[in-house]
């Protein structure tokens, strides 16, 4: 398929157009390139930047899709769910409490095997009404069958959206995927993005084929009847099997993406930065990668061997792979831009997941959890240095608190 249409572009990624766009706009551009059929919208900051840009492209005649502004997020997600059941490629998204308002629609989507792609412009959950980024919104669906991925640049946002369609719409998976973009840092700052040609995207992304699950008069089926304890275990097991097959499909998609678009993300599940010779590493998700990388370069100049592991795919969670990687170091510090009150060791969500992933590992380095950057508070370079110092102390055998709030007025 790919070979037949654009063999030359594999060698010529420079054919891309360069645009100065935000992370949100990059996602909107991906929707255009993927020729999405139905998009639903309901305004909430920071996600609304996506719908504004989509609306602009539709009104300019650049993009052909059904664009429906719903009366609330619940309907917004329900509409695309049904459109997807009818064979349409769909897109929607939300932020913070808007995402939570859609929760009932979010819970039904994975079990119906709807490959919906949603963008979550990460936003703190009310109260108080706050615009800034926190990851608790997207993480709220982590147990339900949603694939969850975090990106840290506009380019990665565009590329990941295309990859997400490819993975979600693969019949082996058929599960929704939410792409998390940190509010403000990614949704509202513009960067140079390589926008690929439609031909490349067509080569990468097959048409959505719902097969025997298609809601259509020619394929009479009943979807989601009442089913009690006689059926629930089997239905959940089927959804679980889709998630279990997802890592293999993600790997295939990134590999082919690199071939067609000329951008190779390496390990799809997490990015490693200066880890080759590191003594200790920090782990985190999203745009806090920028201050972390800057701080690491500073510390490296001072002879401190610190590295960074940026988790992209939170669901499926690459537990074995990550545990093996983290087992190489003398200490690990996980930075959560979220909280999980009353959880083990009062940690954030990512910390608990990493700690659980490490439990069966041969090497289990000391692990510290940090709660930082809530509500969009800046994670500063000195913050990163402080966290890194604590991890080094723990690695040297000096006990440290299991969880520390960073950047808090105390």
């Amino acid at each position, binding site marked *: 398929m790919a070979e037949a249409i654009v063999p030359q572009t594999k060698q010529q990624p420079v054919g891309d157009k360069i645009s100065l766009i935000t992370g949100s706009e990059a996602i909107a551009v991906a929707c255009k390139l993927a020729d999405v059929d139905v998009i639903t919208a309901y305004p909430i900051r920071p996600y609304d930047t996506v719908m504004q840009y989509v609306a602009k492209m539709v009104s300019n005649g650049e993009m052909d899709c059904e664009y429906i502004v719903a009366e609330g997020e619940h309907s917004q997600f329900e509409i695309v769910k049904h459109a997807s059941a009818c064979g349409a490629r769909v897109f929607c998204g939300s932020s913070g409490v808007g995402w939570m308002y859609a929760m009932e629609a979010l819970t039904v989507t994975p079990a119906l095997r709807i490959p919906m792609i949603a963008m979550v412009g990460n936003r703190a959950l009310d109260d108080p009404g706050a615009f800034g980024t926190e990851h608790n919104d997207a993480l709220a669906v982590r147990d339900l069958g949603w694939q969850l991925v975090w990106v840290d640049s506009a380019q990665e946002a565009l590329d990941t959206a295309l990859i997400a369609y490819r993975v979600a719409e693969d019949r082996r998976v*058929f599960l929704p995927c939410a792409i998390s973009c940190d509010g403000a840092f990614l949704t509202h700052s513009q960067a140079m993005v390589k926008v690929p040609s439609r031909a490349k995207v067509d080569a990468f992304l097959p048409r959505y084929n719902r097969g025997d699950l298609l809601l259509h008069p020619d394929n*009479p089926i*009943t979807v*989601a*009847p009442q089913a*009690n304890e006689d059926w629930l275990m089997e239905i959940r097991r089927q959804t679980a099997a*889709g998630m279990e097959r997802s890592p293999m499909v993600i790997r295939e998609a990134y590999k082919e993406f690199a071939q067609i678009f000329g951008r190779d993300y390496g390990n799809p599940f997490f990015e490693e930065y200066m880890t080759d010779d590191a003594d200790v590493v920090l782990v985190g998700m999203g745009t806090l990668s920028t201050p972390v990388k800057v701080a690491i370069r500073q510390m490296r100049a001072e002879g401190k061997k610190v590295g960074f592991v940026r988790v992209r795919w939170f669901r499926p969670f690459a537990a074995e792979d990550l545990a093996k990687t983290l087992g190489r170091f003398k200490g690990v510090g996980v930075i959560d831009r979220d909280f999980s009150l009353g959880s083990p060791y009062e940690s954030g969500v990512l910390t608990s997941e990493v700690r659980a992933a490490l439990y069966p590992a041969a090497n289990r380095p000391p692990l510290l959890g940090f709660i930082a950057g809530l509500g969009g508070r800046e994670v500063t370079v000195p913050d990163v240095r402080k966290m890194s110092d604590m991890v080094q102390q723990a690695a040297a055998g000096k006990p440290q608190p299991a969880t520390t709030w960073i950047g808090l007025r105390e």
Partner: protein
Amino acid sequence: MGRLFAVEIVYRGIFQKTLAKNISRAIVLAAHREGKPGISFGRYGDSPERNGIPAKSFAIVATDDVTLEEGMAKYEPKEVDVSICVDDTLCKGVESWAWYGQQPINKLVKPGGTLIVTSLLEPEALIPMMHLKEQPYRLAVVKGTPSFSGLWVYKDDHTDVRILGAIAKVMPELFSLASIQETIREEEKKTGELKAVSAQRAFDRTTTVTVKPDQGNKEVPYTFKMPNWTEMREGIAIPSIARGHQMKDPDSGKMGGFQPERNTTFKKYLTRTMRPVVNFDTCIKCTLCWIACPDSVFDVTPDGFYDANMAACCGCGVCEDICPVDNCISMINETAFTDNASQWEAWRKDKPAYDKWLVATIANRPERSHGFRYRGQYEEQVPDMLKIAQQG
């Protein structure tokens, strides 16, 4: 380990939910008076808020707490000492929302256990409806019209206490007549004394007959194999039932009419307490029954009649109600029938014989008391039932 007692009450959803609950609560309360702990519960999966759906309540009692826990450690008992069937049409079998397939009414009755049925019929008429059972068991009839009422109204016709009196007779180890009478007096402040007398009368007059392994309906109950998770279509999507097909005229062999395909895994006819009987000679082929039927029960025959398919009908009576011709469709108590055969085929085969059968069936129709039909109905029924209660 002490002794465990299990009683099930098989009832019709909505119409008898309160009745079943009252019986199972009183069993536990009466046993409690004798120092035996117990629990009472309705099976959740039955979803009994549906007209006529067969459903079950259970009372589990033990001689001590540890033994009771043994009985509670399962979703429902595998066998019961006493099974109570509060509507005689349930003797034909039970198809619940909670499982797939048909279960005989006597399925859970222990060898030598007792099945108590409320009915105006004699054991000889009830036994042929009930499926064969490998081990002998006992059958007791509490005489009376099966007591039906609504979800929010309760028809206090003493059915509950008469059954409780019968239990004290067939299984005195569970509770004595005195214990159940004390319970009744305490639970029913106003009518307790009168109801305790009804319990006494039922106790005095309850007798049992033994049902032997060769007695009963020889039909094998239909079953359904549950697919495993890799065999099921994903996405909670199930293939729809196919549309249907034409029917063959038994005389000319010509194809015509329309018979819809029907659900093979949930047949629903055991929800039925009455069935429509059709007079094809007076039918004007107006189509109203066919249109109004909520379950697409009517097959359109090649000669343009509407034949209510008894494998699909749940007996709601909408067809009788909407039919513009007097006595063209008559709802008749389900106990009057022994099979689900096509009425239209019988009529086509031998019209005089069918007409004779029709007249006799309607003339001899047993009392029907299935749900609320008009204001004042329950007030009319209670005195009749109390008269029966007095006679035992």
